[in-house]
């Protein structure tokens, strides 16, 4: 048995202070298999991946690699042993070229002790070629890493690991910022790498990806392994049940969609863009009590559209109406006062004040309404924050704790919750569930359904097609700054969504 295992973790434990991150967790990776590590945030899956990668030293237990017990003292030792890891957080040096980043730390083929520039260039091009047609024109060896969009940087990270020709490749949430086509290509390559005998460990929140690419999955909960399943013999419901520990509850039950479709009264918000930063001639309307989805590949103007609605991209040729009244927002504060709210896509860079408390993050847009004379009524502000925290089931220590003490899902609740304090009429969401765990996602869907029932208009961009399909009343698909399709009711299918994203017309063969 064990000789067929490429990498094995046996009864590995790790604690941080009083927190037990891993408790006697075991897992085995076979040669030529894709093995998923699943679990909610804080379940220990990332810690397990880090132990295997030599980033974290376990307190107890053993790691076996190719039949030998090993003990990595740092990531370099793990790398030398053939374990390469790709993380969600990017580690590229922004001021170095793509090529220099790829070979940083392990130089390309050398001749006479010097880097052979031509050979290095050729190998770089061969690597980049793997993703060439799913990336933009700047995806080239000499481009500075800092000039690439996040998805292409992530591709460089992946190639950097691949260039090591590892025996074990760990992909830790590596697909979170990739678009559908890029993920598709990556999974195609994963198939090839598998065939070469690599063992591949994938850590992801996206259920859909697990069923497309993984052979087996190890599920963790509260630091313990609660199950190992063969993907071919399980179901989505069973996996979610294992992850959450609750009786299987349909996540995509379309609970949000169950209520009556939005009444086609007058639109709450309408936008017409003639010429914008990335948007080219587009119109949309949002109705009260409607969740309007924005679909399409990454970076087709969805974020710019949301920012335009929120007044954060002034100087564009567009007209906007709120409840029929023409409005021109020159600054987010104006949009905010008119009842709009915006949850940005990059939580850490655009949504949080990392140095400040949970309280101050919650109240940032609302302080002015807590002035009593010259001073703020902090007691009232605290009560309001606690109330929203409770509504969102926020798990936190104290309101004065730094917001960085929260887990990703809980931090995202703060980013959303600060707007709930203002009771907005329109909610603009830029990929709000990216990188948060299944449990937090389920709570978020529930909340969205409630807000919708209260008559809010929601504009919702998601990089997860499942979310668009199950939550939205209508989906507008964007491609290169234009709307290529409006899908609703029976037309709102995965097939149509993907076709519209790629700008592919309907299949001729299926039509009479």
């Amino acid at each position, binding site marked *: 048995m064990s000789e067929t295992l490429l990498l094995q973790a046996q009864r590995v434990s790790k604690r*941080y202070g009083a927190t037990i991150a891993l408790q006697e967790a075991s897992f085995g990776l076979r040669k030529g298999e894709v093995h998923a590590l699943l679990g909610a945030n804080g379940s220990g899956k990332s810690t397990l991946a880090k132990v295997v990668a030599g980033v974290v030293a376990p307190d107890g237990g053993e790691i076996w690699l190719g039949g030998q017990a090993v003990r990595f003292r740092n990531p370099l030792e793990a790398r030398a042993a053939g374990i390469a890891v790709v993380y969600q957080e990017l580690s590229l040096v922004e001021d170095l070229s793509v090529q220099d980043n790829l070979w940083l730390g392990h130089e390309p083929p050398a001749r006479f002790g010097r880097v052979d520039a031509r050979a290095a260039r050729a190998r770089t091009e061969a690597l980049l070629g793997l993703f060439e047609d799913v990336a933009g024109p700047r995806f080239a060896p000499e481009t500075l890493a800092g000039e690439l969009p996040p998805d292409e940087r992530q591709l460089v990270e992946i190639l950097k690991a691949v260039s090591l020709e590892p025996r074990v490749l760990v992909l830790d949430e590596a697909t979170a910022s990739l678009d559908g086509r890029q993920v598709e290509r990556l999974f195609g390559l994963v198939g090839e790498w598998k065939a070469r005998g690599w063992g591949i460990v994938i850590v992801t929140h996206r259920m859909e990806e697990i069923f497309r690419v993984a052979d087996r999955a190890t599920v963790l909960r509260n630091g313990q392994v609660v199950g190992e399943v063969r993907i071919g013999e399980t179901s989505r419901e069973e996996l979610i049940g294992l992850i959450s520990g609750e009786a299987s509850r349909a996540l995509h039950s379309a609970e949000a969609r169950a209520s009556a479709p939005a009444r086609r009264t007058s639109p709450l918000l309408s936008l017409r863009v003639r010429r914008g930063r990335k948007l080219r001639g587009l119109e949309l309307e949002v109705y009260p009590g409607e969740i309007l989805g924005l679909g399409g590949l990454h970076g087709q103007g969805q974020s710019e559209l949301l920012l335009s609605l929120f007044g954060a991209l002034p100087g564009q040729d567009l007209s906007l109406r709120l409840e029929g009244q023409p409005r021109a927002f020159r*600054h987010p*504060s104006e949009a905010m006062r008119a009842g709009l709210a*915006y949850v*940005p896509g990059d939580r850490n860079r*655009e949504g*949080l004040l990392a*140095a400040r408390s949970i309280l101050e993050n919650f109240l*940032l847009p609302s*302080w002015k309404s807590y002035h009593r004379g010259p001073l703020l009524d902090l007691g009232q502000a605290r009560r309001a924050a606690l109330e929203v925290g409770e509504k969102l089931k926020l798990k936190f220590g104290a309101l004065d704790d730094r917001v960085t003490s929260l887990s990703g899902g809980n931090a995202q609740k703060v980013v959303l919750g600060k707007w709930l304090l203002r009771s907005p009429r329109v909610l603009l969401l830029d990929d709000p569930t990216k990188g948060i765990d299944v449990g937090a996602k389920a709570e978020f869907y529930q909340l969205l359904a409630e807000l919708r029932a209260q008559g809010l208009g929601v504009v919702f961009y998601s990089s997860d097609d499942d979310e668009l399909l199950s939550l939205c009343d209508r989906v507008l698909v964007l491609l290169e700054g234009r709307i290529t399709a409006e899908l609703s009711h029976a037309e709102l299918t995965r097939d149509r969504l993907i076709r519209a994203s790629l700008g592919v017309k309907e299949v001729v063969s299926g039509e009479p």
Partner: protein
Amino acid sequence: MTRPPNPLPTLLRTPPMIAVGLAVLLLLLGELVRPGFADYGQVTNILRIAAFLGIVAIGQTLVILSGGEGIDLSVGAVVTLGAIIIYRFTGGSDALLLPALLIALGVGFLIGLVNGVGIAWVKIPPLVMTLGMMGVVKGLILVYTGGRPQGATPPVMKSIISDPWVLGIPGDVFIWVILGVGVTLLLQRTAYGKALYAIGSNRTTARLSGVRVERMLILTYALSGMFSALGGFVLLGYLQNVFINLGDPYTLPTIAAVVVGGTALAGGMGGYAGTMAGALVLTLVSSLLITLGLPEFGRQITYGLILLVLLAVYGRERRLRG
């Protein structure tokens, strides 16, 4: 996550408390080396000197909190200008003091406003903008005075600022404490203060949450100019005289006081209580070094080393907590 147990409660390990503890330690050390160093009269004198630095450092605290490499190098020059305006405008008349003070504060505010506009709208780095402004203000002072300030100090200023109010403690110390409470309330209990911490912590987040970042910056630099002019008023009340580089020696120590008080140079973290403690520590260090009879170069070196050690300690604290 793993943190060795620390015998001190968290509150006592915050930079302002470290600075206060250090101040007490320095006082005891001084008393030990030179008996009489911690006498009542000596302590009130140290408090009075710390008050000048502390008042001038109010603006510096706000500006550093605003982030974006915020710094105000024009504070010293504006201190001088503020004092000179009062000195010359009143010509020694008590009746003209109030209008003169308002004019000085207004001019300080305007100078800061120009700093803010240059930084927020023209996007000139704060270091460059305020350094340039320092030169401009010094030039203005020369034009205004012809190099030899004419005028006099209104007598009432002496009773407000240098004469003891109660218990032999001079007025400027009380003024400092009142301002300290006021500025702390401004930072902790007003929407302005909350927005200031927000723009210091993350400007993108602040903007996307409806904070007018540019307006905040302009207002903050303007307030810095105003508080510097107020520093000039207090200094004039103590010295009863002006000269054209009156405020210059305060510029760099204000930055040091802010930093010793635990406010992050990166912005978004800290407060004025820390700066007050920092001003006290710096004043004590200078007094102690003078008491020890160290030559000038020895004082400079020791002063610099103490700053570096303190910053290293804070850096460590922050890593432990982050």
